[in-house]
C-alpha cells in the first residue's frame, strides 16, 4: 500500500515524490488532460486569451467584493429532510472547499430557531438584570467604550454529526461535519459587563437571551461566564452577519453552539439554572439506559479529513497527494493529529500548519505518494489535556445510538481506485 511520508525529512521525500511522478511518466491517468503538454503547446499559453487583451472591471465594480464567478459551488447547503421548516433549520459550512483555519463570514453555517432577525443597531439594547447591584441597559455605542479583545474560536453545533449516530448517512464532510466555523471575534469580556453591574454573591448562573422571535435562552454557569466568554459585535474584522446575530452575540468558547446566543439582548444573573427548552427537551443526551445527560456543554476533541472527501474526490491520479483536514477541541489546543490510510490499523502523525490557538480549528496535512490503491482514510485528534478522539463504536458502546448530540467519533472515508470517495464505517 501507499507509503506515508517521513515527516522528519520533508525536502527529501518531496524530491522522491517528484521522481516517482516522473517514473510513471505521461501515462499518469487518462482523462486528466486539461493542462497536459501537447506537441504545439498548451493553448492557454500559445494563444492570446481574452483576459490577456481586453480590460477588466475598474475599481468599485463591486464595492463589497465577491468571490470569483468560478467559485459558485462554494456555498452553504442544507439537508431539507432534517427539519420541518427553513426558518427553524440549519445549513452547513463547505469545509471541503476551505483551507487554513479561518471560515469566511459568508460561509459560516447558520442555525436559527425563528429566522434571521433584522435589527437596526440604534434599536438594539443589552440589559443586565437579576442578582446584580444595579440593573443596567447598554446601547451598542456604550458597549464599544469598554476595553476590547480579539480571539479566534470555533463554534460547533452540539448536533454536528448527529445524523451519523446510527451509521454513515451523508456523503460529504460538509454534511457530516459542517456545523462548525472558526472566526476572529471582537468584543468585550462578559466578565467586564457583569462587573459593571456588580454580581451579588449568590449569583451563580447567567441566562443570556436573544431578541429574535425565538427569544433563545440558555443557562451558563458563572464560572464560565467569568472565564472566557465574550459579548461580540465583529467577526473577522467586520460587523457580525445578520445570520450570526447582528448586531451582538454571545461567544462561549469551546462550548456547544446553541449557548452562543445571537441577537443578544439580555443577561440575567440567578442562583439556579433555568432548565429552559434548549437545555431540557433539546441539547440533552439520551443514553441507551433511558437516562439523559444534561448540561453537556464542552465540545470534545474532534477531527475530519476535508480533502480528499466525498465532495472533493482525487482528480489527479496517483502520485503526490495532499491529505488535508481540521481538528479542534473545546478543552483547549490540539496537541496532535494522527492519520491512518488503512482504516485505523497504522497511524502517522500529521503536520499541524499555521496557528495553534486554544479552542480554535487547527489545520493539519499529511503529504503522501498515492499508489492508486484503495484507501480507508481516518484522522484522530488529541488535545493538550491528553483526551483523544474515540471511535464511533466506542461512543455507541458508552451511550447507545439515540444521543443526537456530541458525536465526535473518528470518521472514515473510503477512497476508491478512480479517486471517488465515500462515507463508510469499518469493522
Amino acid at each position, binding site marked *: 500500500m501507499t507509503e506515508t511520508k517521513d515527516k522528519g525529512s520533508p525536502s527529501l521525500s518531496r524530491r522522491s515524490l517528484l521522481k516517482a511522478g516522473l517514473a510513471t511518466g505521461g501515462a499518469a491517468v487518462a482523462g486528466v488532460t486539461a493542462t497536459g503538454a501537447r506537441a504545439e503547446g498548451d493553448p492557454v499559453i500559445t494563444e492570446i486569451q481574452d483576459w490577456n487583451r481586453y480590460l477588466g472591471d475598474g475599481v468599485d465594480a463591486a464595492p463589497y467584493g465577491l468571490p470569483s464567478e468560478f467559485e459558485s459551488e462554494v456555498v452553504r447547503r442544507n439537508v431539507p429532510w432534517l427539519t420541518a421548516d427553513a426558518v427553524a*433549520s440549519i445549513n452547513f459550512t463547505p469545509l471541503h472547499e476551505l483551507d487554513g483555519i479561518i471560515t469566511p463570514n459568508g460561509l459560516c453555517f447558520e442555525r436559527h430557531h425563528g429566522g434571521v432577525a433584522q435589527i437596526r443597531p440604534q434599536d438594539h439594547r443589552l440589559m443586565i438584570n437579576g442578582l446584580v447591584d444595579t440593573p443596567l441597559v447598554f446601547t451598542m455605542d456604550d458597549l464599544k467604550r469598554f476595553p476590547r479583545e480579539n480571539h479566534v474560536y470555533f463554534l460547533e453545533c452540539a448536533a454536528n454529526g448527529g445524523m451519523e449516530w446510527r451509521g454513515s448517512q451523508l456523503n460529504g464532510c460538509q454534511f457530516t461535519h459542517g456545523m462548525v466555523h472558526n472566526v476572529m471575534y471582537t468584543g468585550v469580556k462578559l466578565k467586564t459587563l457583569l462587573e459593571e453591574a456588580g454580581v451579588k454573591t449568590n449569583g451563580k448562573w447567567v441566562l443570556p437571551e436573544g431578541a429574535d422571535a425565538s427569544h433563545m435562552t440558555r443557562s451558563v454557569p458563572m464560572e464560565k461566564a467569568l472565564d472566557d466568554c465574550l459579548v461580540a459585535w465583529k467577526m473577522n474584522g467586520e460587523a457580525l452577519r445578520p445570520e450570526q446575530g447582528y448586531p451582538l452575540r454571545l461567544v462561549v468558547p469551546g462550548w456547544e453552539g446553541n449557548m452562543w446566543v445571537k441577537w443578544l439582548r439580555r443577561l440575567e444573573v440567578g442562583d439556579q439554572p433555568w432548565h429552559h427548552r434548549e437545555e431540557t*427537551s433539546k441539547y440533552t443526551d439520551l443514553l441507551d439506559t433511558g437516562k439523559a445527560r444534561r448540561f453537556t456543554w464542552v465540545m470534545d476533541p474532534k477531527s475530519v479529513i476535508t480533502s480528499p472527501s466525498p465532495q472533493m474526490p482525487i482528480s489527479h491520479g496517483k502520485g503526490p497527494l495532499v491529505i488535508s483536514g481540521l481538528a479542534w477541541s473545546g478543552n483547549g489546543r490540539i496537541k496532535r493529529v494522527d492519520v491512518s490510510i488503512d482504516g485505523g490499523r497504522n497511524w502517522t502523525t500529521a503536520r499541524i500548519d499555521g496557528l495553534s490557538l486554544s479552542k480554535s480549528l487547527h489545520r493539519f496535512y499529511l503529504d503522501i505518494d498515492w499508489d492508486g490503491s484503495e484507501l480507508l482514510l481516518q484522522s484522530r485528534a488529541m488535545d493538550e489535556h491528553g483526551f483523544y478522539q474515540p471511535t464511533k463504536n*466506542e461512543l455507541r458502546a*458508552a451511550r447507545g*445510538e439515540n444521543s443526537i448530540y456530541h458525536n465526535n467519533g473518528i470518521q472514515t472515508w473510503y477512497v476508491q481506485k478512480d479517486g471517488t470517495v465515500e462515507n463508510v464505517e469499518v469493522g
Partner: protein
Amino acid sequence: MSKLVKSLALTSALVASAMVAGSASAGDAAKGEKVFKKCKACHAVGDGAKNKVGPQLNEIYGRAAGSIEGYKYSKAMIAAGTDGLVWDEDSLTQYLKKPKDFVKGTKMAFAGLRKDADMENILAYLATFSSAAPSSGSDSSSAEPTAEKEALQTAAATSAPTSNTREGGVFGLGRKATDAEVAAWDIDIRPDGQGLPVGSGSVADGEPIYTDNCAVCHGDFGEGVGRWPILAGGHDTLTDDRPEKTIGSYWPYLSTVYDYVRRAMPFGNARSLSDDDVYAITAYLLYLNDIVDDEEFVLSNENFLEVRLPNEENFIPDARYEEPHYAEKSEPCMKDCKADPIEITMRAAILDVTPEDGGDDSAGVGAVD
C-alpha cells in the same frame, strides 16, 4: 431623490394601489391583516415580499396556481395550475377553507380557516396587494399604518441616546434599567416557580386556543404534523430504537412548557398570547399527555408546582469523561492496531439521502432541532 420626496412617492403609490385594488366583497382588510398572522410564518406579502416556506402572495388574484418561478411547489399544485386553476375569490375561499381537500397533495400544512368572517377579511387583505382583485367601495387601511410606523421608527431612532454614562460602576457606562423595562423583558420561568405570573386557565379553555394556534403544526392531539415537534404520547419509548421525546415522555419540568410557549409560540407570532392563554394551553398539554384527565382542571400560579412531569428523575449530570475512551487518557496505538482484516461495514451511498445527489426527496434518520 430626497428622503421626503421618496416617502411621499411611496405613500401615494400605496394609496393608488389600494384604490385600484379596493378590497374583496364584504371583508375588512385591516382585520384581515390580523388573520394573516396565521399565514405569516410561511408567506410574505407586500413590498419586496419574497418566497419563504410558502410562495409570496403579491398579485395572487389572477395568478395561475403553482406559477411563481423559483418556488418549489408540490407536484399537486403544479398539476392544478396546468389544469387551469387560477386564484380568484371563489377558488381562494375553497382552498383556504380546507387546503388539503381542494388541492390533494398540497404541501401547505395549514389546516384551514374555520370562520367565514376570517375568510372574508383575509381575502380583503390579500386583495390590497393584487391589482386584479375585484373592487368594492370599502377602504384598505393597510397602507397608512406602514408609513406611520416608518415615521415613528425614525423618530425613535433620532431620540434614542447613542451612549450613556452614570455614576458608579467600574467604567460608569450604560444607564440603570427601569422597573418597567426589566418587567417587559424578564419573562423567564424556573422550575421552582420563580417568574410565574398571576393567572389561570383550564383544560377546557385551552382546547380552542390550542386548536387555533398550535394544531396547524403540532396536530390536534399533539401528534405533530410533518416534521414539526410531537408534543404528546411517547410514554416508555426512551429506550426504543426511535424514542419519542414529548412533554409527557421526556421533558423534566412543566415550567419549561410555560416559559417556552410564552416566549416563542405560536411560531411566527411570539408574545401574542395572554398569560391566562398560556396557562390554558399548558393545562391542555397536560391533558393531551394524560397527566391530568379532568377537562375542568384549572392550572394557575397557585397549583403550578404541584404538577410534576414523569421523566424528571431521569436527567443525570454529564459523565462523559468517565467513559473508558476518555478516562484512560492512554497513548493511542500507532502500529498494527487491529488484528482482524478491516472491512467496510456500512456505506452512505446505499442510503442515498445526501442532498443534490439524487437523494433530495428521501428522508434520512435523525433530527437536529
